[in-house]
């Protein structure tokens, strides 16, 4: 029964979030601030993880293939793994930890210090004012981060493959281009957009409905990350079946 309560409250919350903003210029300013917080400030961690993921996939694939599997398979595997799963799923999961906990703790703190009540008393739609810029910023920035992750992962795979001698640049490039289906990128970006909405809205929901004090803010932050990751994983399965099955 508790699940239905949360689903209902989440739906009602989203109805408030997606209302037209009260002031366009204030909304745009908040959107830029959120894009900085969610996008630009996540660039470093996304780049770092993508480089290492691409490099590790390259070494692992080289280790797996025997003499009878062509070497260009390394480039092919790095590309497919980064585009289909690692970048569009693992990066959002990492961002659920970084961005999601940040959103939940920010809103939770605003709730327990009555800042959200203050907005409501002034007549401001607090859910829309606080959450809509975060959701749109996530929807815009996370796909860009994922595209960057794909490029960096594949690039790092190639660099490691060539520098360690497991593949030549030509073999890697050939593998990278072979049997390329542009829909794989579309599929990855569709997933990413859905995950971006899940991460931002689920985290905001947990933060917004925090009650109590500092301890509950911490709990909300943890819950936000756990629920966001679980829902991302379930959505991943459903979307994969829908789009590729």
């Amino acid at each position: 029964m508790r699940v239905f309560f949360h689903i209902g409250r989440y739906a009602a919350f989203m109805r408030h979030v997606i209302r037209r903003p009260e002031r366009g210029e204030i909304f745009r300013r908040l959107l830029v601030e959120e894009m900085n917080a969610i996008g630009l400030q996540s660039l470093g961690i996304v780049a770092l993880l993508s480089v290492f993921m691409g490099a590790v996939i390259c070494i692992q694939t080289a280790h797996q293939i025997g003499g009878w599997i062509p070497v260009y398979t390394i480039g092919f595997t790095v590309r497919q793994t980064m585009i289909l799963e690692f970048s569009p799923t693992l990066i959002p999961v990492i961002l659920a930890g970084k961005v999601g906990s940040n959103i939940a703790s920010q809103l939770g703190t605003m709730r327990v210090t009555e800042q959200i009540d203050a907005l409501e008393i002034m007549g401001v739609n607090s859910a829309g004012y606080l959450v809509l810029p975060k959701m749109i910023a996530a929807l815009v920035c996370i796909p860009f981060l994922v595209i960057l992750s794909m490029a960096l992962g594949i690039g790092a795979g190639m660099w490691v493959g060539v520098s360690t001698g497991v593949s030549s640049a030509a073999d890697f490039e050939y593998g990278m281009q072979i049997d390329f289906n542009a829909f794989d990128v579309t599929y990855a970006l569709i997933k990413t957009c859905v995950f971006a909405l899940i991460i931002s809205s689920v985290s905001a929901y947990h933060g917004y409905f925090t009650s109590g004090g500092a301890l509950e803010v911490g709990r909300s932050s943890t819950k936000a990350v756990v629920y966001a990751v679980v829902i991302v994983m379930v959505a991943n399965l459903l979307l994969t079946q829908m789009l590729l099955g």
Partner: protein
Amino acid sequence: MIQIHQVSKSFGDQNILRDISATFHPGKVNFIIGRSGSGKSVLTKCTVGLLEPDQGHVTYDGRDFTAMDRVARKAVRQEIGMLFQGSALFDSMTVEENVTFPLRMFSDMTAEEKRERASVCLARVELANAAGKFPSELSGGMQKRVGIARAIAMNPRYLFCDEPNSGLDPQTSIVIDNLIGDLTEEFNMTTVVVSHDMNSVMEASDFIHFVHQGQIAWHGASEDLLQAQNPDLEAFIFASKLMKKVRQTTSS
């Protein structure tokens, strides 16, 4: 004038407010007093619409707030200023940005006019030189005064103050109390103050509502408070040694 008609509110099987009716007078400081957990904060939240009463209704100068839709409520809320227990200042904004926030959201003032209005409000609470500071750089008393400046920025008709003196020393409390009283008179606001601080009640109240076990157990003018014949109210008022001494002095 704010009127509360037979408002009830429960959480689960706990009846917090039971059929409460009260009237808050314009141009006066109306206190809601009572022990912790008596229901005074819930009553205030039901009055301003942060909580929905289970039954009963609240009217602002004859307008039934409880029956209003979202748009109509928004219009009434722009006539309400509220000072929160913990000030509830936006910590990512400077003092000036906090004060101009409602103006930025709901007025068509130019940037210069907003700044001017903020400086008038901050000067009124004697914080004209704190405009560029962040809330974390201010003392508790200063934060409360910024909260008051923000609350009066839109020239409200109704002012709510939730425990305005909590965490403040007696001298700063008196400054806040006097400020609330002066502003109420100056702007002819209907002011509602929630408090359990008897010093504050004696200092600033015009009318008092005593909430006990979810009901208004006594109400009247502040000058009648010490003579009230209500055992629960007496126990509340004369709980401290200081107030017991006051009673002894007045009775002798």
